[in-house]
C-alpha cells in the first residue's frame, strides 16, 4: 500500500496562474495568425485566410494550424494567446456562476482535441479548482462540449445527448472541425461542424485549441469575467 496522497503533496507544483492572469508558458499554445499581407493567403489550404484589399484576414474558425503562413516569404505575424473563443449565446444564469458540469461528446474528432481536454484535470490546469466537472451523464450536464466535424453516425447520438440534458443548457463547439468541419469539411461523411446540427452558444477555434482556450470558453459560459490579453485581472 503506497501513500499516494503524500506523494502527491511532495510533487512539484506548476499550476497555471489562469484565470487570475493570462499565463503563456512556452509551448502552452500554438498561437494563431494575425492579419497579414494578401500574398500569404495563397498558401492556406482551408480558406482561413481571406483576401480583403491588400490584406489577408484570418477566419480563425477555419484555421487548422498547418503553420504554412508562419514561415517563408510571405510569413504572417503569429501571436501566442489563448482567448480565442467567441459566440453570441448568453452565459448560463447566475446560479451556475461557480460550478458547472460538462458532458464531453466526441463527434468524429481526430483525437487531438480530446487529448487536450484530457489535459484539463492535469496539475498544470486543474479544472476542478474552478468548479468545472466532467460528468458521464447528460442528465447532470449543464454544458455539452462537442469535438469533431459531426460524422454521419454521430449525428443522432449528438441530438439524443442534447435532448437528454435539462435546461438551461449550453453547447460549446471545440476545435476547427466542430467550428467549421476543419480539414474534413462538409462531405458525404461529415456535417461540417456542430452548428449544422445544433444551436452553438460558444465556439473555440484551433486545431486543436490548447487547454486554456477551452477553459476560457467554459468560464465565459459560466458568466465569469476574464482578463483579456494584456489587461490586468479584474
Amino acid at each position, binding site marked *: 500500500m503506497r501513500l499516494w496522497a503524500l506523494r502527491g503533496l511532495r510533487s512539484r507544483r506548476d499550476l497555471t496562474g489562469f484565470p487570475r492572469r493570462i499565463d503563456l508558458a512556452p509551448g502552452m499554445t500554438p498561437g494563431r495568425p494575425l492579419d497579414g499581407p494578401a500574398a500569404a493567403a495563397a498558401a492556406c489550404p482551408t480558406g482561413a485566410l481571406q483576401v480583403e484589399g491588400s490584406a489577408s484576414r484570418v477566419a480563425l474558425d477555419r484555421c487548422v494550424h*498547418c503553420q504554412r503562413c508562419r514561415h517563408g516569404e510571405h510569413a504572417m505575424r503569429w501571436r501566442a494567446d489563448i482567448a480565442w473563443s467567441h459566440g453570441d449565446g448568453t452565459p448560463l444564469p447566475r446560479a451556475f456562476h461557480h460550478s458547472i458540469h460538462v458532458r464531453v461528446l*466526441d463527434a468524429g474528432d481526430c483525437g487531438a482535441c480530446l487529448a487536450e481536454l484530457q489535459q484539463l484535470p492535469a496539475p498544470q490546469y486543474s479544472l476542478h479548482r474552478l468548479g468545472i466537472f466532467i460528468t458521464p451523464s447528460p442528465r447532470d450536464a449543464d454544458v455539452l462540449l462537442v469535438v469533431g466535424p459531426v460524422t454521419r453516425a454521430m449525428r443522432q447520438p449528438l441530438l439524443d445527448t442534447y435532448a437528454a440534458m435539462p435546461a438551461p443548457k449550453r453547447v460549446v463547439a471545440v476545435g476547427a472541425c466542430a467550428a467549421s468541419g476543419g480539414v474534413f469539411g462538409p462531405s458525404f461523411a461529415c456535417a461540417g461542424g456542430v452548428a449544422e446540427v445544433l444551436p452553438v452558444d460558444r465556439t473555440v477555434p484551433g486545431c486543436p485549441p490548447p487547454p486554456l482556450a477551452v477553459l476560457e470558453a467554459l468560464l465565459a459560459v459560466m458568466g465569469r469575467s476574464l482578463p483579456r490579453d494584456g489587461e490586468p485581472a479584474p
Partner: protein
Amino acid sequence: MTLPELLQALECDPALGAGATAGSVLALPLPATRLPHAAHVLARAPTRLAGIVCEQQDGRFALRYPFWLGAGLPWLELVTEVGAGETVPSISPRLFAADWHEREIEDLFGLTFSNHPFLGNFVLHDEIWPEQAYPMRHDFRAQDADAAPSPYQPRAMLHAEGAFLMPLGPVYGGVNEAGQFLLDTLGEDIQHCQTRLFYKYRGIEKRAEGMAAADALLLVERMNGTNAFAHALAAVQAMERAAACEVPPRAQVLRSFWAELERLRSHAATIAGLCKSTALAVPTSLAYQRVEELLRLCGAHAGHRYLFGLLSPGGLAQDLPDAAARTLATAAQAVAARLADLAEELLFDNSFIDRLEEVGLIDAKTARRYGLVGPVGRAAGHAGDLRIDQPYAAYAQCAPRPAAAEEGDNLARLRVFLAEAAESARLLPLLAAQLPAGTARGVFTPRAAAALGWSEAPAGASACFVRLRADGRIARLRLMPPAFTNWHAFHLAAEHFAYQDFPIILASFGLAMAEQDR
C-alpha cells in the same frame, strides 16, 4: 525461410528476388484464383500482412496485398485484378488478419469476397447508410448516401437464463472516443464482446482524392491527431518513393527525432490512461503532468503541441537548429526520467498490480493469428518492428533495442510501453548528436506513379499506399494504420474478465478509434 524458398513455395520464379533488399517492394502479379494458396503459404512464413489496397481503374479493380518480411528482406506485394461484378476469393480463412480489410473493401467498393465468413455492416452502419452506396467508387455521389437505410438491432450472442446485452457507447464515460462495445453477460463476467467501430468514419481516403500531396498530408495527420507525425511520415515516404525524390540527410535524422519524441509522449499518455482507468488519482495526475510537459516541449520547438504541419513532401517544413535539438533531447530525457520514477512506484503498488496482472490476456497464438503489431503484439511474444525490420528515416544508423514480453496481459503491455518510452528517450540525444549539416527542406517534383510507405507508429506498424497523378495530386490514398490491425483482436482480451476490468483492458491497448475509423 529464405526469400528464394518463399518465392518457390508461392510458385513464382525464385530469381525474381535477386537484389531485393529491406526497404524495397517486390511485386508478385498473380491471378485472383491463386490468392488463397499464396495466403496459405505466407500465413505459415514469418510474414505480416500490412493491409489490402483496392484501387478502381476504370471498370476494373486492382488489389494489392503488401506483406513485410523480417530484417534484411524486402516487402512482398501480391497484385491481382478483378472486373466489376466478379467475386474475389477471400483469403481470411487462411490468413485471418485479412478479415477486416476484406470487410472494409466490401463495404466501400462493393466487391464481394467469396468464402468470407461475415460481410456487411462494418464501416457503413446498416441503420444509417443505404445498402447500395459504395463511397470509394469513382461514380459515387453524395446523394447516393441519402437513400433509405435498413433497420439494425444489436444481436445478443449469449442465450441463457439471465443473460443480457449491455451496449457501451458510442457516448459513454468521461472524455472518451466514440465507439461501441456490445457486452454479453450473465452478470459479473463479460462472456462475449463485439467491437462496433466506425462511428467516426470521416471518409479521409475519399476526401484525399484529387488533393495536392501536401494538403493530403494534413488529412493524414488528422487521422489520429495524437500520433500525427508517425502516420504522416508513412504517407510522406510513400509520396517521395512514388516521385523518386531524395530526402536531405538532415531531414531524415530529424524525422526520426520527432517520431521518437512523439512515441515518448504517446506512450506517456497511454500510461496516464492506464493509471486513470484504475482510479488512482495521484499517479494519474502525475502522469498527465508528464504528458503536458512533453506537449509543451513540442509546442515550444515545433510550433505545434501535436507536431502538425511539420512534415512536407521532400523533407520537413521547418528546421530544428542543432543546439535546440540537444536542449530538447535533454529536456525530454528529464521528463522520461520522472515518468520512470513514477512507474517504479506504480510497479510496487500491490493494489495497482492486482488490477493488471493476468487480466486482458492475449496469448502468442492469438497474436500471431491476428498479426498483432506494436506494443500489444510485442507484449504477447509477437516481435516485429518496422524500425528494425524495414528501416526508414535514420533508423538504419540508429536502431532501437526492441522491447518484448511473453505474458500478453495488461501488465506485460504496461512494461512494454514503459520500456519503449525509455528507449525513445535514449535515442533522442543520440539522434540530436548526429544531425548532419545542410538543409532540412527538400524539393518534391511529383510524377504519375504509385508507392508504398511505412513507419512504426507508437501503436505499431503503419503502412500507406499513395498513387500520384501527373499533376502531383492524389489519385488514391490508402491508410493501413496499426489500430485497424489491433482492434480486430481487442474483444478477445476483454472476454471472460469482469466488467470492472473492461476500462483497464481498454486503456492497456492504447488504441485510437479515430485511427481505425479514418
